[in-house]
């Protein structure tokens, strides 16, 4: 499986490493040369070493299937992806700007509703949003921040620019894999780190902890921060446990917590102990059986009461998902102008809203060219990939759109950029995206890079790990002056 870049052809797509067969981009030259210098056995050895490291480190995720839940090793490709620091700087600023605006929006929606009254965002979109929680009206969380942790999906089109595909504001996952990928790469290619100035990413868990501590309602030096997980059968359990471990926080399940006198306590070997901040990895609807799904055993009865009284902080705040909606997404550039008075630094992928009659007509007429997404699904579920779909599937989707236009939006099929992955016969191009993580408390922090997700199947655009996607280590590299 020796790598020969001359036979590597990404075609019309923007490739992250190779600009044309045989030619690496400037930032990737050392990497490309190094990889092609390795003998077949060496490459195979590195690949095996990575697989073993992942197995030994127990980096896994759970897949839901009909045959039950299976704990799988994390799929990882050993060739790192390089992004220059120059390009990243403006992207990072764009991400920060976006999250600030989104938080202004969420706070506004639950309080004064200025943006709705000014008709910048139609009121009915909010009223019909399944992620709008009327229970949260009037709530003022610390720093007016609702979405403390955001995972924004970026893609690169053929022009090489980053576009925002979606903002995940509910319980975005993947950051632990971003951190572990770097660890594995250090084990597999330690020599490459000598030749590159790569921005370190290990700071994330410290930043996360500081942000969580900062939103504590009690002014303490050491507030009690916990991570609330749905439990060991959740697909992201590895991540919940990883983050708790790195932050030195307790990893709790619903049954470990109890609400008394509108305060939250955990059951410890010393008896009940007060909790100040909960980084919850449970969806809104399961948080509190007294308010939401009454039969949820994952949550904590009374939790909403404690939160609304200001006795505990929840990250992300309940109701933050109102802005994590593929229809609301199209208004983010307008929000940036409205709240911050700035021009958006990062662009959205062009989108068509089915709730708008004209745009809906266009969508229905061009289903074979578009990707149609429901407003509130995540993990790549419930989507229509128009160009790849059968006629029957398209007709079925047309019916669904007509029945509930508010719930659908469409985008042209963006040509996701590619990057080489190590396959049986050397390097082959595969489509990728990028999920950076952004934190907002008192300040905003953006991870240098993020989690690069890879569609491991040739030609596929589906990068979600729940649907067989893989991942790569992502390097933000400072270029030498020359």
């Amino acid at each position, binding site marked *: 499986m020796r790598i020969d870049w001359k036979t590597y052809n990404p075609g019309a797509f923007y490739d992250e490493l190779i600009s044309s067969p045989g030619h690496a981009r400037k930032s990737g030259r050392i990497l490309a040369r190094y990889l092609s210098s390795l003998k077949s056995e060496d490459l195979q050895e590195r690949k095996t070493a990575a697989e073993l490291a992942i197995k*030994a480190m127990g980096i896994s995720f759970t897949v839901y299937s009909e045959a039950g839940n299976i704990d799988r090793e994390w799929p990882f490709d050993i060739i790192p992806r390089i992004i220059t620091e120059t390009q990243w700087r403006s992207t990072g600023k764009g991400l920060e700007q976006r999250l600030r605006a989104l938080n202004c929006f969420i706070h506004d929606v639950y309080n004064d509703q200025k943006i709705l009254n000014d008709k910048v965002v139609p009121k009915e979109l909010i009223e019909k949003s399944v992620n709008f929680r009327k229970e949260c009206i009037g709530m003022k969380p610390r720093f007016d921040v609702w979405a403390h942790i955001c995972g924004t999906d970026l893609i690169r089109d053929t022009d090489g620019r980053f576009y925002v595909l979606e903002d995940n504001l509910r319980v975005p996952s993947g950051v632990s894999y971003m951190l572990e990928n770097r660890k594995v790469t250090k084990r597999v290619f330690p020599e490459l780190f000598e030749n590159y100035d790569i921005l370190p990413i290990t700071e994330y868990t410290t930043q996360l902890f500081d942000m969580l501590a900062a939103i504590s309602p009690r002014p303490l030096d050491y507030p009690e921060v916990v991570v609330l997980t749905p*439990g060991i059968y959740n697909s992201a359990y590895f991540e919940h446990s990883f983050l708790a471990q790195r932050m030195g926080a307790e*990893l709790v399940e619903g049954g470990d917590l109890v609400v008394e006198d509108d305060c939250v306590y955990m059951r410890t070997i010393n008896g009940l102990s007060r909790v100040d901040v909960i980084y919850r990895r449970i969806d809104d609807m399961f948080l509190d059986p007294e308010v939401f799904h009454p039969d949820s055993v994952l949550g904590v009865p009374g939790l909403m009461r404690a939160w609304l009284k200001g006795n505990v902080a929840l990250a992300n705040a309940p109701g933050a998902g109102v802005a994590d909606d593929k229809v609301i997404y199209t208004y983010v550039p307008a929000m940036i102008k409205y709240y911050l008075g700035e021009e958006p630094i990062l662009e959205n992928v062009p989108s068509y809203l089915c709730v708008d009659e004209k745009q809906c007509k266009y969508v229905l007429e061009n289903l074979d060219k578009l990707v149609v997404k429901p407003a509130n699904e995540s993990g790549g579920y419930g989507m229509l990939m128009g160009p790849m779909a059968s006629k029957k599937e398209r007709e079925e989707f047309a019916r669904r759109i007509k029945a509930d236009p508010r719930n659908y939006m469409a985008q042209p099929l963006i040509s996701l950029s590619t990057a080489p992955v190590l396959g049986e016969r050397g390097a082959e191009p595969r489509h990728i995206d990028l999920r950076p993580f952004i934190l907002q408390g008192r300040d905003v922090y953006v991870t240098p890079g993020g989690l690069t997700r890879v569609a491991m199947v040739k030609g596929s655009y589906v990068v979600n790990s729940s649907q067989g996607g893989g991942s790569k280590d992502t390097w933000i590299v400072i270029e030498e002056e020359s």
Partner: protein
Amino acid sequence: MLSRVAERIYWLGRYLERAENTARLLNVYSTLLLDLPRGAKIGWHTLVEITGSRPGFDEKYQDTDERSVIRFLLSDTSNYCSILSSLALARENARTTREIIPSEAWEQINNLYLFAKENASKGVARGPRHQLLNQIIAHCQQIAGLFAGTMSHNSGYNFIRIARSLERADMTTRIVDVGSVTLLPGLRQGGKSSEQIEPFENMIWMAVLNSLSAYQMYRQHVLDRVNGGDVVTFLMQDRQFPRSVVHSLAKLESCLQSLPNNGAALAEVSSTQALAIDADIPLLVQNGLLEYIDELQIHIAGIHARITDTWFLPVVSGQQQSA
């Protein structure tokens, strides 16, 4: 520390210790039986008795031959006492307490399980068995060392040591029980005269010591030749040998000291200690050892119950664990 986490980490400690003890037992037994006279009415079934898993064994196997018993105790995942099951449960408890235990320890526990899963069935054959079991024992020791050297000696660490001490005390009583109650009478029933039995009796007590890695320490401590009364006294009452009942209880007691609300558990340990220390073992070896050990085991189960009541019960545990 969360009650639920304390419970899982406790079980992690017990299962690791159980896997190691079972491996030691299989190792010694495999070599011992080769030396015994063919007429002796003892055999592989004894191992099933020690681990207290007779009903589970009978359900699945027809013969108590070597292959069946070794398979049952080593690699049979339907037997929750098998080494592989113990390691799988240890791993599951480690996986669900990863935020508490050092990541190196988790990696080693995970590795040990993967190793055992891959290789356990090979140990059914006599050839590779010894090496396999030794690797498992060494790996368990390495993990114990990692905990001691890399984990803060906090409540979590205390629960691991509490679990280990309790499991050890329990295993030692079981092994003594089998040595004196099953092995020796079995030998006598073989129809041999007492002169013929004597050399084997000596050998059996040596095997009992070996299965607890106690032979060398015993020789240093007891200068007389190996005999039943001294061996049982040593394994029960020696204060310095780490696997003796009295030593394990002392360790247990000191770990309990630093936990909150420890009254009930400490009281139970005290009464168990009194029972262990005050006994006239040589006399009991002559008569009444079986009843005595039964009483001791009831006390050990009592300590487990007090620990559970005090620190774990506030939360219903998500998984079924078995003592």
